[in-house]
């Protein structure tokens, strides 16, 4: 787990140095209202921020700071990166969780219905809807929803944060793509499980079909779904970047995009690290969930 974090931080560090543009020049130009900064000024900025030192040394310096709980300050705003992130995190998490909730509420029932009525009308309908959902780009769906529900019907605000109303459209935008993927996953996983012998055992007991499906089959079918949903949570944060821009929500995504364009290295590095931590933690949570739904998985030295 730690290895993942180290790897991610090294990669972002290197990638930043591979991107064209000199942060010192970009930043100073902006600070000076668009005028070209003098060579001395650039040199001085590099000196003060440690940008002229070898990259490995810079990395070690940064890691040392991070380990001491210091994510450094933004080049522009004179505020600690940690403060920036903490201010922005609620909006993004709220969006990701809401998006996930939308995705699962749509996907699990649809997937089950689709599998149970395989090859019949409900199946084709949901498969088609899933295809549309997968193919539709987030930003496009976002604008369509804004046009229809905000501008024409006036049901929800166009943009911004605050209250449940402003969360509805972004959550639908973000959740729909994932709903489509998860629907197909639930369907195929369910179909596989319904072919298992223990489903016939359950039926042979005289159980109702409803109990066979929602107790015996679903519990088994959810095992692979939990893995993918956990992984998808990371991509959901990804998608949040785009959705936040469409709906002008001040979240981590918007912060990240701004920081990348402005070559605000400390902010980019801090953000990527935080996102990686969230990713790793979700995967850990997924592993824990496994143990609950699949008794065959046990941790530690328990004998099977």
């Amino acid at each position: 787990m730690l290895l993942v974090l180290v790897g991610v931080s090294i990669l972002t560090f290197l990638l930043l140095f591979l991107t064209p543009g000199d942060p010192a020049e970009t930043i100073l130009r902006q600070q000076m209202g668009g005028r070209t900064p003098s060579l001395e000024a650039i040199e001085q900025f590099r000196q003060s921020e440690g940008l002229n030192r070898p990259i490995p040394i810079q990395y070690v310096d940064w890691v040392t700071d991070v380990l001491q709980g210091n994510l450094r300050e933004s080049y522009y705003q004179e505020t600690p990166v940690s403060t920036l992130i903490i201010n922005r995190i609620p909006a993004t998490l709220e969006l990701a969780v809401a998006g996930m909730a939308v995705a699962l509420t749509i996907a699990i029932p649809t997937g089950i219905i689709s599998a149970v009525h395989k090859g019949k009308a409900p199946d084709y309908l949901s498969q088609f809807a899933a295809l549309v959902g997968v193919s539709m780009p987030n930003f496009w769906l976002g604008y369509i929803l804004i046009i229809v529900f905000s501008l024409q019907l006036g049901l929800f605000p166009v943009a911004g944060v605050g209250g449940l109303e402003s969360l509805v459209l972004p959550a639908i935008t973000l959740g729909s793509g994932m709903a489509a993927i998860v629907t197909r996953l639930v369907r195929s996983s369910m179909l596989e499980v319904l072919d298992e012998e223990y489903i016939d055992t359950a039926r042979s007991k005289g159980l109702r079909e409803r109990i066979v499906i929602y107790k015996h089959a679903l519990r088994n079918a959810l095992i692979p779904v939990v893995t993918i949903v956990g992984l998808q949570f990371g991509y959901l944060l990804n998608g949040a970047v785009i959705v936040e821009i469409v709906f002008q929500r001040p979240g981590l995504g918007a912060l990240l995009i701004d920081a990348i364009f402005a070559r605000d290295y400390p902010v980019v590095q801090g953000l990527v690290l935080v996102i990686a931590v969230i990713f790793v933690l979700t995967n850990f949570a997924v592993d824990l969930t496994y143990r609950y739904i699949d008794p065959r998985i046990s941790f530690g030295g328990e004998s099977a």
Partner: protein
Amino acid sequence: MSETLLEVEDLHTRFATREGTVHAVEGVSFSVDRGEIVGVVGESGSGKSVTARSLIRLEDPGYIERGSVRFDGIEMTDADDRTIRRVRGDGMAMVFQDPMETLNPVFSIGEQIVESIKVHESPEKQGLLDYLNVPLFSSRGKRSQMRQRAIDLMSEVGIPHPETRVSAYPHEFSGGMRQRAMLAIALAREPDLLVADEPTTALDVTIQAEILQRIRDLNEELDMAVLMITHDLGVVAELCDKVVVMYGGQVMEEGPVEDVLTNPKHPYTESLLGCMPQTCARGEPLNVIEGRVPSMVGEPTGCPFASRCWCSSESCTSGELPTEQVGDDHTSRCHHVEELSESMEAEQ
């Protein structure tokens, strides 16, 4: 004359496949009396498992084309779901072949037995939330009572330390123990008929003997009839009162075990007996039946065994099979029954 419990008449079960219709079961008839142990033997692909599954209406993805399955006065072939569930929960229980696949891996053994008890006690009232053990929707007192009954059942089928094993999961059980657990699940419904589809095929011989003994004991103690599906004539000889020999989806010979095994009246039964390793002298190659099980796709014509039979003639390749009475309750479906008995007498 004892009472007939299960009566199968002219059962046809088919599968629609891309290659054509598979005639898995073609006009099978037999009956099981109360408390009787009936064996169904045949090679792989002879339709015996499909027959068993059709009885309890688990023939899907196949379908019953025609014929009747009458269980305790209930016609199963056109019964509604509710009736089928009632029979499954109360009258006819099934044990499947591979215990590694037939227990749900995510529920404890105890839970799976308790479910079976629950169905048996109130087959009509099956609330989803109750079965999911959601608090408030399922009574805890009743639950612990059923758990105790599950423990009793586990010791009845010979699972050691049932008090601790009741909360174990299937992956913590060996194959033999799992099959016992399956047996306990079946017994929880106090069935009149146990349909056992090759229950010991996937187990090693010592365990096989124990499980068979257990089934025989239960048959005697509970007066539970057993329909034993097997390919092992040894199992039939040891356990059954009556035997039905199947081939190509049809019944070849039927009669009391003694009669059929010592005095077979059908060339297929004879060939099958000849294939038992015990009948072969040491060092000699084992006997085999030449040829292969015929494809079951398309309308069958004549005797399915004709292509592998030493005494087949023109008449065997077309038309219906005759049903020849060859003894008390002993029938053979062969055109050449008389020649066969003559040749056997000559041999002796």
